[in-house]
C-alpha cells in the first residue's frame, strides 16, 4: 500500500514536471514564432496580420526568467526570488487570515440558512448578489474604513487586515453555497433515524449534517483557498497597501522596461502561492476525509 502510494506520487511528480516543461517549450516556441513575424513580416502575410508579434521585452526568454529568480535587482544584494518569497509570505498571511474568517462566516451562513427553507429562499439571492460587486470597488472602501473606524478593537488594526477582509469577501461565498448543499445532503432516512433517537437539532448538526458535508466543504475550501490568494493580491493592488505580492506586481509593472523578467517572476510567484494553498487544503482533506472507497483528489 505504502509502495503503491509512493509510486503514485512519483508518477504525479513526473507528470507535473513534464507539464511545466511543455509549458516552457510552448512559451519558447511562440516567442520564436512571434519574433519571426516581427523580423520578416512579408514571409508571414496572413498569420502575421492576425497573431500578435513579440520581442524580448514582452516575452523574456525562459532562461532570462529563471536568471531573474537568482539575480539581485540593482542596488540590492538579495536575490529577487528571495524578495518574492518574502512578499509571498506577507500575502499568504493576509490570505490565510481571510480564508479562515471566510470559512467561519460561510459556515455560519450555511448553518443558519439550512435551518429554514424560508430563510434559504429569502437570503440565498442576496448571498449570490454580494459576489457581483467588483472587488476593486469595495477594496478602497474597506481600507479607508479600516483605518478610521476599527479603533474599537482590542488590537491595533493594520492595513493588511483590511486586505484579509477583502479576501474573506471572496472566500465565504463558495463555503456558504457548498456548505448549504452539504448540510442538505443527508438522506431522509438518515434524518428520520436521528429523529427516531430523539436527537436534538445540535446533535443532528454535529453528528450527521456536518460530517456529511465534509466532501462538499473541502471542494469549497479548495476554491476558497485559491480565491483568498486572488483576493489578497487584488486587495493589495487596489487598496494601495505596502508589501505583498500584489504590491510587488504593481511595482515591477511600473519599471517593466528595465527588467521584464522580474514581473514574470512575481506573477509566477503568485501562481505558485495559489498552487501551494490548494495543496495544503488537499493534504488536510486527505488526512481528515480518508474514507474507504473514496479517493481524495490531489
Amino acid at each position, binding site marked *: 500500500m505504502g509502495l503503491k502510494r509512493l509510486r503514485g506520487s512519483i508518477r504525479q511528480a513526473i507528470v507535473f514536471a513534464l507539464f511545466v516543461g511543455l509549458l516552457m517549450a510552448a512559451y519558447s516556441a511562440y516567442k520564436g514564432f512571434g519574433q519571426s513575424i516581427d523580423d520578416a513580416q512579408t514571409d508571414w502575410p496572413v498569420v502575421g496580420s492576425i497573431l500578435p508579434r513579440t520581442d524580448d521585452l514582452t516575452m523574456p526568454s525562459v532562461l532570462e526568467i529563471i536568471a531573474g529568480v537568482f539575480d539581485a535587482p540593482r542596488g540590492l544584494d538579495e536575490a529577487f526570488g528571495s524578495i518574492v518569497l518574502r512578499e509571498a509570505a506577507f500575502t499568504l498571511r493576509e490570505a490565510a487570515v481571510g480564508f479562515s474568517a471566510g470559512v467561519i462566516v460561510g459556515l455560519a451562513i450555511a448553518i443558519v440558512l439550512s435551518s429554514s427553507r424560508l430563510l434559504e429562499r429569502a437570503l440565498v439571492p442576496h448571498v449570490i448578489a454580494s459576489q457581483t460587486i467588483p472587488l476593486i470597488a469595495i477594496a478602497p472602501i474597506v481600507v479607508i474604513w479600516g483605518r478610521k473606524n476599527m479603533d474599537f478593537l482590542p488590537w491595533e488594526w493594520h492595513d493588511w487586515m483590511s486586505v484579509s477582509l477583502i479576501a474573506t469577501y471572496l472566500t465565504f461565498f463558495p463555503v456558504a453555497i457548498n456548505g448549504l448543499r452539504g448540510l442538505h445532503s443527508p438522506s431522509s*432516512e438518515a434524518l*428520520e433515524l436521528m429523529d*427516531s433517537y*430523539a436527537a436534538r437539532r445540535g*446533535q443532528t448538526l454535529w*453528528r*450527521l449534517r456536518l460530517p456529511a458535508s465534509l466532501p462538499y466543504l473541502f471542494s469549497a475550501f479548495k476554491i476558497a483557498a485559491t480565491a483568498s490568494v486572488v483576493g489578497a493580491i487584488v486587495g493589495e493592488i487596489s487598496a494601495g497597501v505596502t508589501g505583498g505580492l500584489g504590491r510587488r506586481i504593481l511595482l515591477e509593472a511600473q519599471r517593466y522596461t528595465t527588467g521584464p523578467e522580474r514581473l514574470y517572476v512575481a506573477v509566477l510567484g503568485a501562481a505558485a502561492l495559489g498552487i501551494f494553498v490548494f495543496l495544503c487544503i488537499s493534504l488536510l482533506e486527505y488526512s481528515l476525509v480518508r474514507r474507504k*472507497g473514496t479517493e481524495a483528489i490531489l
Partner: protein
Amino acid sequence: MTAESVTSERMPAVEIRGATKVFNPGEANEVLALDNIDLNVGAGDFVTLIGPSGCGKSTLLRLVAALVDSTSGTVLVNGKSADQARLDRDYSMVFQKAGLFDWRDVSRNIELPLELMGWRAADRRRRSKEMLELVKLEDFAHHHPLELSGGMAQRVAIARAMSFEPALLLMDEPFGALDEMTREHMQNELLRIWSETETTVIFVTHSISEAVFLSTKVVVMSPRPGRIAAVIDNDLGTRDDTARDAPQFFANVSAVRKVLRAGESQ
C-alpha cells in the same frame, strides 16, 4: 403461566385507535393514506404489516414512531403518546437501507444512539462489543461500512437499533434489498435475537413467506385508502428451517395470500 395470560392479559406495547392519516389535506394532491386503523400489539409480539405498495404500511409504522403525525385518532406506545415514547426512546427503528454513517467505523455506528443519550465512552464501547457479539460480527468492529456486504451492514443496523435495549423494534422492510439466501439467514438471526431479547417487533414487508415465517401475528392491509383487511394469528411453534417446509407454514401463506387477493379485486 396459563395460556390466557400469555395471549390476552399482556400490557399492549402499541394501541392504535381510529388512526387516520391524510397527506396534503385541502390540496389538489390530497391522499387518504390510512383510514380509521385499529390495532393492538402486545408486548413481546412479533407483528408484520403486509400489503401492496401504497397500502400505508410504512406510514402506519411512522405513526407509531411519531415520525409522522396522525390526522385523527390516537396512537399509544407503552401507554403514552407516540411522541412521548419517541422522546423517552422506547423504540428503535431499522430501515430498508442500513443507513450506516460511512465516516464512522462499525463500532462507532453502533454507539451513535448511546452517544446521543449521553452514555460514557467506556460504557458505550462495552455495549457496542456486546451488540457485535449478538449479531455475530465481533471481528468487524473497526471495519468501515463501505467494506461490508448488504447483509452485514443490515446486521450492524440491527445492532445499532438494539444497543440501548428499546422495548419496541420498528422495522421498515429491513431485508427488502437483500438476496434470497442472505434474507433467510437474516430472518433466522432476527428470530434468534427476538427470542433472546424479548423485544416487541413491528415489521413491514412485501413478502408473504417472510411475514408468515417471522411473525406471531400478520396484519394484512389493502390500499387506497389504507385499511386493515385482516389480522391473522400465526402460530408455527418453533421457527427454524424445518418450519419453512411445514404444512402449517404453507397453510398460513395461502391464508394471507387469499386475503391479499381479495383486497386486490375490490
